[in-house]
């Protein structure tokens, strides 16, 4: 198999790596292995490759300590992690957890890239779960390894284990001046120990690294240009590939059919050739520019049905569908509650399709041979991608090797699987390794979008201002289960995730934070094959849920004349929800005022709003301060305040960075982002037709981490976006006295709302 290289010039092997190569666990070079792209001189390398550890396809046995970590002769450790780094710092956090239990410092721990022949299978890196679901195994394995090392040290030094302590991998006994390093005890040999999970863990009070703020290990290389992104990887002897598709996907169920294809139309680029399987069309060439030009110039026409509802008609179309319904959560009985209420608020809200639009379009490299394949891509789940690739290529999963390189921030299921399949199909057809790079319009146009949503909310209070009834009905389609490359190449029919799995109305945004005795949440699943492709987009649909729900809560507060923050405090019992609510309000210096006290008729109206919501775990609270230009309809978000309680924050600094990013991204999604489409296909294909927030309109941000040392760690990569969306919507009413019932809040939509009111 070919060796992927960052670039040929990095092939010389640093001595430190070479020394490790003699042991059982190797980073770096071997004749059958992979060239390390590690960079040295500034602490441990962010992520390198490791050679296959056993000669058999992974996943390695999770019940072996050696699966999780290795101790090297130089007294450093390699930690094998099953979660990918997505630019959020979770890899460094997991190294903190591991170093903490091993009593190493951060300069002594590093990890390797995810690789189905090397790293453990911890499931996909979804739902901000790296720390919540990833750290327990890594923590317990490290503790168990430490215990084993102490026993070795006890024998070696002839002292009881109880007399030993460890600092930076040096085991010392208080009985005499005896010490030995981890490296001397086991250096590059296997533990050969069953992983029982029974070793005692450190208590929170003993933590030195967990809860601290060591810097991220990937940032130095990311600013110097040394970091190897997926887009930088090359394979020897490879061709450059591009897919050729209609500009903008059509209705998911139909895919796209080639009507006419004129291969001679690229005769002026002799080095490029067309490859085709079914309706999957691509071009390959030795030089990248030839592939780009050939894809551009190839004369091809497509049959695409004109039966999409169009972005303007999508909400009415979804609402009119015969849906597959499921009660997600039911408490008490809402009917009598509404009958006895003194005030009721109702509303219908719309949220647009939105795109992942990763900043660098997805790509992948594949070297497909008759009996095996290597695919390098930016998947969130190397083992999951391996399985689907095996199906597409007609190979057993164990014959497919998938390696992960970080691309640009994906924020959910962007086109990485589609790109991996496309590269594999191109390589299979071309008979050579192929590097596929999606163009901007491929990524924007063939994304699996965050679905459009219709939310209908009713909420009711009694004479005391207590919320007594709440109902949320949500309409949207589910996520798509078959990638476009497979659909086009093999004719596999489109399919979506089943009802009850994947996308549902989320209690964490729809009422569950409040103490409401009668509550009913209903998911109305729209048949997705008649719409665009869908998948999880950071905090999936939560922005839409909170946009609808939190405006309804504010509506109730207004009806009884209570400040929005105070009204929420009165209706929340859960102290963790109260914690983030208070934290956000305090950061914003929220002074109680009668509802809508800010409404003005000035040209530029100013308002503030508060909101709550989360994804699946954790707790999010936010405050937004905005300005609305009544003449132009332009909304400017001036300052966002966000608080997350994610239990024990392993690295609060990383969570602050995540909160900051979430607040800005939410402002972008609430103000600008909308996938547009006509009856035939998607028309938002680049950054002009799908604008996002820019520097000039970026709000100030204030991030607050509510540290809970006594609570288990939960997610922090997407848990304040819903709250922020609700806060922006509420600030809009606070400024203008007008309900905004559809996002994004673009000037035409805002002006239309003013006209209606």
């Amino acid at each position, binding site marked *: 198999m070919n060796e992927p290289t960052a670039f040929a010039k990095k092939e010389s092997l640093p001595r430190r790596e070479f020394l490790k190569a003699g042991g059982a666990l190797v980073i770096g070079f071997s004749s059958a292995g992979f060239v390390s792209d590690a960079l040295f001189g500034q602490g441990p390398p962010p992520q390198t490759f490791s050679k296959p550890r056993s000669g058999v396809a992974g996943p390695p046995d999770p019940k072996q300590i050696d699966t999780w970590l290795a101790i090297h002769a130089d007294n450093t450790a390699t930690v094998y992690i099953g979660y990918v780094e997505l*630019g*959020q710092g979770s890899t460094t956090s997991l190294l903190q957890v591991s170093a903490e239990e091993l009593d190493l410092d951060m300069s002594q721990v590093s990890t390797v890239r995810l690789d189905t022949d090397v790293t453990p299978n911890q499931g996909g890196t979804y739902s901000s779960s790296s720390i919540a679901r990833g750290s327990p195994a890594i923590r317990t394995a490290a503790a168990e390894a430490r215990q084993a090392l102490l026993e070795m040290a006890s024998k070696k030094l002839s002292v009881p284990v109880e007399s030993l302590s460890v600092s930076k991998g040096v085991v010392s006994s208080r009985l005499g001046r005896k010490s030995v390093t981890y490296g001397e005890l086991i250096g590059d040999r296997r533990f050969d120990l069953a992983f029982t999970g029974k070793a005692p863990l450190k208590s929170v009070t003993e933590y030195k690294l967990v809860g601290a703020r060591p810097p991220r290990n990937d940032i130095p290389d990311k600013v110097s240009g040394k970091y190897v992104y997926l887009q*930088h990887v090359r394979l020897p002897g490879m061709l450059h590939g591009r897919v050729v598709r209609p500009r903008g996907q059509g209705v998911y169920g139909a895919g796209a059919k080639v009507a006419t294809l004129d291969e001679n139309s690229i005769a002026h680029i002799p080095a490029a050739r067309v490859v085709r399987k079914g309706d999957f069309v691509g071009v390959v060439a030795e030089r990248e520019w030839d592939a780009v030009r050939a894809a551009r110039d190839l004369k091809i026409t497509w049959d695409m049905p004109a039966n999409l509802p169009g972005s303007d008609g999508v909400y009415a179309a979804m609402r009119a569908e015969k849906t597959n319904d499921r009660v997600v959560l039911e408490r008490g009985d809402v009917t009598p509650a509404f009958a006895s209420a003194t005030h009721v608020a109702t509303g219908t809200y719309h949220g647009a399709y939105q795109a992942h639009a990763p*900043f660098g379009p997805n790509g992948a490299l594949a070297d497909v041979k008759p009996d095996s394949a290597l695919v390098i891509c930016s998947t969130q789940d190397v083992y999951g991608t391996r399985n689907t690739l095996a199906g597409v290529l007609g190979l057993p999963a164990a014959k497919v090797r998938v390696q992960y390189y970080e*691309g640009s921030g994906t924020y959910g299921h962007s086109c990485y699987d589609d790109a991996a399949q496309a590269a594999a199909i191109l390589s299979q057809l071309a008979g050579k390794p192929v590097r596929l790079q999606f163009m*901007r319009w491929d990524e924007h146009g063939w994304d699996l979008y965050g679905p459009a949503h219709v939310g209908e909310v009713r909420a009711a209070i009694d004479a005391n201002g207590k919320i007594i009834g709440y109902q949320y009905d949500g309409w949207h389609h589910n996520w798509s289960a078959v990638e476009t490359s497979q659909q086009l190449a093999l004719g596999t029919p489109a399919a979506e995730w089943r009802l009850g799995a994947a996308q549902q109305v989320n209690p964490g945004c729809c009422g569950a934070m409040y103490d409401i005795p009668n509550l009913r949440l209903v998911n109305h699943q729209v048949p997705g094959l008649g719409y665009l492709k869908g998948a999880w987009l950071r905090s999936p649909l939560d922005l839409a849920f909170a946009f609808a729900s939190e405006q309804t809560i504010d509506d109730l507060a207004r009806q009884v004349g209570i400040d929005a923050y105070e009204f929420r405090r009165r209706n929340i019992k859960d102290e963790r929800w109260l914690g983030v609510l208070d934290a956000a309000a305090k950061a914003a210096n929220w002074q109680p005022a009668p509802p809508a006290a800010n409404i003005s008729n000035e040209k530029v109206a100013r308002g503030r709003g508060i909101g709550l919501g989360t994804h699946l775990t954790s707790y999010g609270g936010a405050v937004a301060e905005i300005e609305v230009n009544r003449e132009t309809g332009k909304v400017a978000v001036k300052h966002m305040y966000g608080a997350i309680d994610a239990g024990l924050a392993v690295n609060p*600094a990383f969570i602050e*960075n995540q909160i900051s990013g979430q607040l800005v991204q939410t402002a972008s999604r609430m103000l600008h982002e909308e996938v547009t489409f006509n009856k035939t296909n998607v028309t938002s294909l680049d950054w002009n037709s799908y604008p996002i*927030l820019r520097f000039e309109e970026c709000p100030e941000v204030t991030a607050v981490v509510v540290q809970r040392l006594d609570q288990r760690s939960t997610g922090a990569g997407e848990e304040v976006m819903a709250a922020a969306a609700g806060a922006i919507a509420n600030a809009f009413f606070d400024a203008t006295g007008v309900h905004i019932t559809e996002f994004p809040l673009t000037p035409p939509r805002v002006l239309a709302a003013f006209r209606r009111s």
Partner: protein
Amino acid sequence: MAGKIKLRVNEQVHEVDAAPDTPLLYVLADDLQLQGPRFGCGLAQCGSCSVLLDGAEIRSCVTPLSAVEGKSITTLEGLPAWYAKQRRLHKAPALHPVQQAMIDEQAVQCGYCFNGMIIQAAELLLQTPQPSDAEIRTAMNGHLCRCGGYPRVIKAIKRASQAMAAAIDSDREKEIAQKIGTTRAEATR
């Protein structure tokens, strides 16, 4: 048709065999194997491919080779040396002050846009050593960030601006000290 084209990149001359209409980015990435400029849109909309051309930021994804022959191209990799040349330093620092400030502010998330952010900020600080908040936002407005990293980038640029001003002061002090030393030596002689 392809032919040899001479490119001056990071003060080194390279001869590449590529069609003159080839966008510079593909040659930097594929032929010269540089990792600073990178593909983002191919439409000059996002800034991930930015390089300095004779000291001014351009989008290499839409700039044909024919337009850059005979000019000096600086990529992220060459930025510390470019800075040293501007400042007449004897030795290039490991990082441009903007790069260092991005680390100090832990400004990065995925980091893919940071090539363009750093290139553009370096140009800004050359033209406007002490930019206001508004000047930073205006200068950087053509660079997008999907992760929402703008607030920290603004902070980092301010930090770099301060660091560069402090470095200038220390350069001047050294210069003055040197002059005094020379004068004394002359006086003694």
